[in-house]
């Protein structure tokens, strides 16, 4: 399947069923259910400590839940060993909240490393493809030979995204893609996320706090609160929700401003 055909597949890309997570006595998730459809930009939101990042880590097989089922591309990932998870991990890319770029490699080397590890391509073409990915994320061409410590926060996020895109994944996980960015860079990320989905046919799952990003980019949003999913739907649907937690989220002063801005743009 090519990236553009991938979405034609049937069934959800990610399916979480009856997921339970606990850290000691603290309950994080209680019977969480959600599914992400092919080709959509799915956002997971919720207050700090609601377990958004934990859920993400469980889906990308970095951390096991207590019980429940998580299927990615139709395959059960709970309890999967690193070796068994490798074929799946090649099909998704992850952009970590703080970038997690390898600090001793340049941006281009960070991207190229993934290609060296997983393909049989020649040195030259790997360099070229790395440059393509760097350009796709909107970084200037001279960012490639720079080290992560020489980049600004926004550029580091883009570089991290370039690395996540190295193997042309079908599914992209973004953890807080706009956190810590100035509004201009954050707007750039909104557009980037949408153009990646439209141009490369990706399915995108992101964890975010950014209401602007949600209004502009997300197709569907799930709200995590009180240890479970309290609402799923488009932003417009959620903004009509009666749930106090969701109302609080959307009708706080910041939520209102973002919503008005979104209406204005339409």
């Amino acid at each position, binding site marked *: *399947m*090519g*990236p*553009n*055909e991938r979405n034609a597949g049937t069934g959800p890309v990610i399916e979480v069923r009856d997921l339970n997570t606990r850290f000691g006595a603290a309950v994080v998730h209680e019977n969480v259910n959600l599914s992400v459809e092919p080709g959509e930009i799915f956002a997971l939101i919720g207050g700090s400590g609601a377990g958004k990042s934990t859920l993400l880590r469980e889906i990308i097989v970095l951390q096991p839940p207590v019980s429940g089922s998580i299927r990615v591309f139709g395959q059960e990932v709970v309890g999967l060993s690193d070796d068994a998870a490798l074929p799946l991990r090649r099909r998704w890319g992850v952009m970590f909240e703080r970038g997690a770029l*390898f*600090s*001793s490699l340049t941006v*281009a080397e960070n991207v190229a490393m993934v*290609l060296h590890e997983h*393909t*049989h*391509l*020649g040195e030259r*073409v790997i*360099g*070229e*493809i790395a*440059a*393509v*990915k*760097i*350009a*796709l994320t909107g970084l*200037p*061409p*001279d960012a*490639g*030979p720079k*080290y*992560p*410590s*020489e980049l600004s926060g926004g550029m580091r996020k883009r570089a991290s995204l370039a690395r996540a*895109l190295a*193997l*042309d994944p079908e599914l992209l996980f973004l953890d807080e893609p706009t956190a810590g960015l100035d509004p201009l860079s954050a707007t750039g990320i909104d557009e980037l996320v949408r*153009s990646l989905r439209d*141009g*490369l*046919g990706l399915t995108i799952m992101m964890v975010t706090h950014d209401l602007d990003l949600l209004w502009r980019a997300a197709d569907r949003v799930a709200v995590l609160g009180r240890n479970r999913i309290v609402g799923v739907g488009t932003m417009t649907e959620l903004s009509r929700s009666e749930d106090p937690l969701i109302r609080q989220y959307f009708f706080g002063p910041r939520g209102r401003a973002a919503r008005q801005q979104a209406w204005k743009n339409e």
Partner: protein
Amino acid sequence: MTSQPAAQLNIGAAPASDAATVEMRCTGAWTVDGIAELDRLLETLSWPERGEVVVDGSALSSLDTSGAWILHRTLRALERRGCTVRVQGLRPEFGSLLALIASREIATATPVAAAPGSLERLGRLAWTGLHGLAAYFAFVGETSIALLHSVAHPDRIRWRVILHNMQSAGIDALPITGFLSFLLGLVIAYQGADQLQRFGANIFVVDLVALAMLRELSPLLTAIIVAGRSGSAYTAQIGTMKVTEEIDALRTIGVGAQEQLVLPKITALVIVLPLLTVYTDITGILGGMVMARAKLDITFPVFLDRLDEAIAISSYWTGISKAPIFAMIIALVGCYRGFHVTGSAESVGEQTTMSVVQSIFLVIAADALFSIVFIWLDL
């Protein structure tokens, strides 16, 4: 994905048109997994010199950004040679992907700096060496100023931090330093026993063990262990704090890094290393005593009697007097290397290695210097 046919490019004369037109048919999966072979072949291919080229993409089974890049690169290369390129039959989504790649400015050739000549390398080496020496002196100077400042304002001395450092560099090191110096005493007595027995001079094993341990080995051994344990920890701690901008945060709050991080470490180590040396003196001689009894039948009371006669108190003091200097070397080098960490995790490792190597080197060099000075002073 891997079961798909690899990317291919079939080149031939276009059917039903004039001979100048070349048709290229793209088939298979032009994806990151499928293009490896194609890319190698493309390097060896010779392209037509002008004329019209029709690229037919109707048989492409899939295309990703890597494949699109290869296609884009090929098309551009043809255009540069003066060919008229026409793309046909491409699925709309593949077309838009190709357009996406074409719209970006891509830095394909990263300029490689010419390797410097040997003279330039030598020059750079000398320069960084000199620069490093100057920076080290500057660091010692800064620390001295901070120390003077601290003496002038004793209320700003961080006793808790000093005590904590004494705990980790001193008390926590007791088992390992004690054990190693006990073994060292044991080994020296064992090696000496054979020689001394031959001359019937059994009792002189006491002189041998005590002099060697008190004057040289015990201060040196302790300093080397502490350099490996604590010097490296200082570098790693300060280095990581630099990476995470904690040093900058300290300065912003108005707390000097020297005052908070360096002085307490130096103070703690200067207090603790002589004490550790006294302790390893004792355990080392204890090791010698045990071996002397086992190998030479010298009982503990006899050993201790001889110890009293054989060793002048000055031997003990010369050994102890080195310890504060060693402590300063270890703490200064450890902290200095920590402040030299730049940005990356690799740099933390590099500087930690350098810190341990340099502090052990300097400790042994200083020890040699001490020997010369003591001979000169007739101690």
